[in-house]
C-alpha cells in the first residue's frame, strides 16, 4: 500500500447507491485512486471512457443500454491504438453462468455486495498490473490481453444453438418480403434494426444481432464486427492497411466491410 500508484478509475453501475458504495470502499483501500466518473449505463460508460481514458474501469455486467460485456467489447474495438487500454474489472451481483466463463478466461471480477477482503485482492492485482504496463514496451499488452480474454469468453457466453433460420421475413411497406438465408451477403446492425443486404436489395428487420447469431450456421456466417455478420463464401478477399486494420472485399457488392480487432484473428492465418 505504501507505494500505491496514483490512478484514475471510472465506475459503470446503474444503481447509484451501489456505485457510491463501491467508490467509498475503493477510496478506503486505495486512497490515491481517483474516481473520475460514475456512468449510469453501458452507453455512458463507453462514451466516458473514450472521452477521458481512465486507467481502470469497473463495469457492472447487467446495465441498461448496454451490458458490461458489450461495453467491454466496444471499448476493445474502438480504443485508440496509441493509448494504453484500461484494466477492466467486471462487477456482478449473481451470474453463475458468466462467472464460470470468467474464471475460464481469467477475467477479473468482483461480486456485489463486495467485501473489503475480496476487493483488497483485486486492488493488489490491479496495482501490480498497472506497474507492469507502465514499463516501456508493454503499452500494447493490455489491449491484446483483453482481446484474447474476450475471444476466449465468446464461445462460453454464446446462447444455445437454436433452430436454423432458412428464410428471413422483412417488412417492406405493407408487404412481407421473403429472403432466402443463402442470398444474404451480410447483416449490418443499425440502431434498432438489422439491414439485410443481398446482391440487389437491402431490407430492414427488427431484431438484434445477438438474437440473430444463434440462428445462423457458424460455418456459413461469420461475425466480423460488433455490428456486422457476413456470409463468408461471399467474401472475395481480406486486406490489411498500414494501420493494421483488416477489411473485406465482397464478390457481388462494391462496398468493403471493416473487420474489428476482436475478430481480426480470424483472417490473420488466411
Amino acid at each position, binding site marked *: 500500500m505504501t507505494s500505491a500508484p496514483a490512478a484514475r478509475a471510472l465506475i459503470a453501475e*446503474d*444503481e*447509484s*447507491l*451501489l456505485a*457510491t*458504495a463501491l467508490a467509498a470502499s475503493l477510496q478506503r483501500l486505495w486512497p490515491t485512486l481517483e474516481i473520475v466518473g460514475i456512468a449510469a*449505463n453501458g*452507453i455512458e460508460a463507453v462514451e466516458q471512457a473514450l472521452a477521458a481514458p481512465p486507467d481502470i474501469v469497473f463495469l457492472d455486467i*447487467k446495465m*441498461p*443500454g448496454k451490458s458490461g460485456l458489450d461495453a467491454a467489447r466496444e471499448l476493445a474495438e474502438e480504443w485508440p491504438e496509441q493509448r494504453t487500454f484500461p484494466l477492466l474489472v467486471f462487477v456482478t*451481483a*449473481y*451470474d*453463475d453462468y458468466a462467472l464460470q466463463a470468467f474464471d475460464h478466461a481469467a477475467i477479473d471480477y468482483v*461480486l*456485489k*455486495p*463486495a467485501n473489503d477482503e475480496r476487493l483488497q485482492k483485486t486492488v493488489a492485482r490491479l496495482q501490480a498490473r498497472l506497474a507492469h504496463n507502465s514499463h516501456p514496451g508493454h503499452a500494447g499488452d493490455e489491449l491484446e490481453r483483453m482481446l484474447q480474454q474476450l475471444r476466449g469468453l465468446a464461445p462460453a457466453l454464446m446462447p444455445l444453438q437454436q433452430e436454423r433460420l432458412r428464410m428471413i421475413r422483412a417488412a417492406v411497406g405493407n408487404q412481407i418480403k421473403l429472403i432466402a438465408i443463402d442470398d444474404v451477403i451480410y447483416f449490418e446492425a443499425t440502431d434498432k434494426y438489422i439491414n439485410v443486404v443481398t446482391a440487389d436489395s437491402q431490407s430492414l428487420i*427488427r*431484431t438484434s444481432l445477438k*438474437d440473430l447469431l444463434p440462428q445462423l450456421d457458424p460455418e456459413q456466417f461469420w461475425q466480423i464486427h460488433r455490428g456486422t455478420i457476413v456470409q463468408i463464401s461471399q467474401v472475395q478477399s481480406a486486406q490489411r492497411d498500414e494501420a493494421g486494420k483488416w477489411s473485406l472485399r465482397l464478390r457481388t457488392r462494391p462496398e468493403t466491410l471493416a473487420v474489428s480487432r476482436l475478430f481480426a484473428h480470424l483472417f490473420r492465418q488466411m
Partner: protein
Amino acid sequence: MTTNATTTSNTISRLHLIAPELLRSLLPTMIINLLCALVVTYLMRIGAGFAENLIFSICIGTTAMVLIDCGRILLWGKDEPNKPGFLLMLVIFAPLSFFIGNLIANFALGRPASIFTPNQAHNAIGIIVLILLACVGATLFYWNREKMAALQARNVIIEKQAVQAQLQMLQAQIEPHMLFNTLATLQTLISSEPLRAQHMLDQLIHYLRATLSTSRSAQTTLGQEFELTKAYLGLMSLRMGLRLSYNLHLPEELQCTPIAPMLLQPLVENAIRHGLEPKVEGGDCTVRVSVHQDMLVLSVFDSGMGLNTSTSYNKPASTHLGLENIRARLDALYGPLAELTLTHHIPEGTVAQITIPMPALDPQQTR
C-alpha cells in the same frame, strides 16, 4: 332396522339416476341388437328372416338393457358393481329378458301373447346363451368405458397437479440477481442510512415470505396481493431511484375480492425485469384493477422496452414459461373465459392484462 331403512332410502334416492343411464346405454344396445339379429339369421340360421329377427332382437335386447341398468343402479348406484353379483344378475336376467322380449315382440306383431315363438322352441337354449354373451359383451364395453372416463378424470387431476408443481417451482425461483442486488443495497444503507435500511429490510422480508412460501393458501385477496406488489415495487424503486415511478390503483370495494396467488405478481416483475430495468431512462409502472361488464380486469402497464415484435406472447410457447403457467392456472381455476393478453402500450411499453369473469371468482364456485 336403521341399516335396512338407509339401504331402502339409498335405493330410492338412486331412482333418478336410472333415466340418464338408460339414455346413455341406448345406442350401444341398438348396435348389439342389430348384431344379434345378424348372427341369429345368418349364422344360426333360425327364425323367419332378418326383419322379424331384428324385431325380436330389439325387444329382447332393450328389455335386457332396462333390466340390467335398473338392477345395477338400484343395487350399486354409480359405484362399480362387484363382479360375482353382477354375473349372477346377468344369468337371471338373460332368460328373463328372452321371455319378456318375446311377449312384447309377439304382441307388437299382432300374434297371440306367448313367451315362445314356434320356430324358436327347439333353439331356446342357444338363443338364451347368445343373449347372455351379448349381455356380458355389453357389460365389458360398459366397464371399459367407465375405466376410460376414470382414467381421463385422473389425467385432468395429474395435469392440474403438474401446473401446481410448476407454479411452486416458479415461486421458488426468486431471481438471484434481484436478491443479491437488494442485499448489496441494504449493506450500503445499513451504515449510511439505517432508517431507510430498516424500511427496505421490512419490504424484503414481506416479499420473500410471500414469494418463497410454497404452503401459500390457494386463495388470497386482491388487497394482500397489492401489499406484495407494493413491497416489491418499493424495493425496486429504492434500487432504481428516479428511473422508476409507480402507481397502484385498487378500488376500496375490491380489497377483499378473492384471487389466486401469483397471477398479478409475475406480471409486475416482468414489467420491471423486461420492460423498465433494461431501459436507460427507466419509466413508469402502473397496476390497476377494475370491473368491466362483470369481468375483473387486472392491468399492468409499463412504459419500458416494449414487446419483441418477432415473438408471439399470446400463443403457447415454451419460451415464456411464466406466462404459460399463468394461462394454465387461469384456465384450471376460472374456466376458459379467463385470459391473459400482452399488448403494446401506446406510445411505448407493454400492457399485460388478466380478465376473469366475476362469478368465477366466488370461492364456492371455484373448481
